């Protein structure tokens, strides 16, 4: 069992294990489930993620509300034209993140990670790294457990709800989970995983939750695209050997306090930020 990042780190070091291995062991103990059952369950999760991250790449998927959609396909095509500014990898990752967001908004099947609003980030991050480094599904399943470990710590000590902590708690935490998992998958050490997670949270600390008309579409989908980029660059920062001066647990605590300090208008009520712009309000009127 671990409640804090420092405890998880210690368990890893004392036992010479990866984050995913400790998370798997602790899950088996606490929920009385066998190793095989656990792996099979996560395999199903990965399948759903893989499908949602790819289904909107070649087909224009429009949301139920009809206010958004089709953007995953746009960026996928754009990438294929070979003239991107930030490179194929980032563009491909953004396309996958948008795909899951669009599937979510069109009443398709997704896996909340940690929430439905932020569900595009983790699948896209892992699948992108899988392609680049030729990883197996087994590797990715382990990556998902590592990510879950980070998410558990944040849930226990802070929040992963936009209504409580703003978008930093949804998309920010998703990026942190993904960043830590990527570092483990490419062979980084456990400390580097925590540094990567810290960077991801620090990079977007203070991000508000302001969905237009309360619909999980705009700016949510965009933040899934930027969230996966955040995860990838945070992992790179950590793999380069850069360290977060402030340890992960303190960063999580800071994120929580920032969330609490946010006015209610910036926490999912759709009364502030992008939701409360002139255009945001005009769109909202269509649903009243």
């Amino acid at each position, binding site marked *: 069992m671990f409640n804090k990042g420092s405890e998880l780190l210690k368990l890893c070091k004392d036992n010479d294990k990866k984050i995913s291995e400790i998370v798997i062991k602790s899950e088996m103990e606490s929920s009385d489930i066998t190793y095989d059952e656990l792996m099979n369950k996560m395999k199903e999760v990965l399948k759903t993620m893989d499908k949602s991250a790819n289904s909107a790449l070649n087909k224009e998927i429009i949301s139920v509300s009809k206010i958004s959609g089709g953007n995953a396909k746009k960026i996928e095509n754009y990438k294929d034209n070979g003239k991107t500014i930030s490179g194929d990898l980032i563009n491909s990752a953004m396309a996958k993140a948008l795909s899951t967001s669009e599937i979510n908004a069109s009443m398709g099947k*997704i896996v909340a*990670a940690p929430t439905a609003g932020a569900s595009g980030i983790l699948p896209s991050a892992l699948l992108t790294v899988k392609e680049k480094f030729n990883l197996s599904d087994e590797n990715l399943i382990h990556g998902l457990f590592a990510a879950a470990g980070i998410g558990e710590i944040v849930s226990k000590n802070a929040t992963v709800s936009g209504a409580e902590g703003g978008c930093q708690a949804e998309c920010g935490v998703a990026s942190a989970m993904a960043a830590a998992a990527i570092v483990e998958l490419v062979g980084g050490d456990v400390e580097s995983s925590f540094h990567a997670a810290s960077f991801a949270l620090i990079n977007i600390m203070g991000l508000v939750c302001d969905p237009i008309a309360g*619909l999980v579409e705009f700016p949510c989908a965009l933040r899934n695209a930027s969230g996966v980029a955040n995860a990838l660059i945070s992992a790179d920062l950590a793999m380069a050997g850069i360290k977060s001066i402030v340890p992960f647990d303190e960063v999580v605590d800071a994120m929580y306090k920032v969330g609490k300090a946010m006015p209610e208008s910036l926490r999912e009520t759709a009364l502030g930020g992008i939701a409360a712009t002139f255009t945001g309000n005009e769109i909202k009127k269509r649903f009243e």
Partner: protein
Amino acid sequence: MKNYGVFDIIGPTMIGPSSSHTAGAVRIGKIARSLVDDSFFKVSFHLHGSFAKTYKGHGTDRALVGGILGMNPYDERIKSSFDIAEKNNIQIEFIEDDLGYVHPNTVKIVFQYKEKDNYYIIGSSIGGGNILITNINGNEVEFSGNYPTILVKYNDRKGSISRISSILSNNDINIATMKVSRKEKIATMLIELDSPIENKIINKISLLDEIIYITGINSIER
């Protein structure tokens, strides 16, 4: 500190866009269907509060229809539930309504029949896919659908509670929670169980003299 497992963080696997508008709405619809005779030809959904304001954008309407068609919260056909209802010759209607002092995400589902009276169920989606059923055709109740639930209405007599609960214990069924309320001489009992409900148990209880009405509702998946 609340405990979280791996699948609380990476999960649930769900139909978007939000658990309170999709999963919660499907579950209310599905429970409602399990409580009624399924020969209805038309269903009216009276939407209250934020359900009334946001149902179109969030797809709550399709989720509710998916529910009354018997779908589970992760059924990918929810998106096309309107077409499926039409194919099954079920008419659907949505009415924005004021249901009084109730939770903001509340719906009253009225099932309409050709040869008999309407029958309604009221339920609220209270967040994260959790629901509360609060009224069954005029009977005030309160249950979550997370457990198999038995609802009994009976003429209150000495020993009724023990007669009902001994039928359960004699059949090796464990009671998770039990609530009894009484209006004049008529009592309503809600029993949540740890194991699924079998018809033979419902039949046995219904043979007791004092029973006016009894129904069993199996739990609805998350």
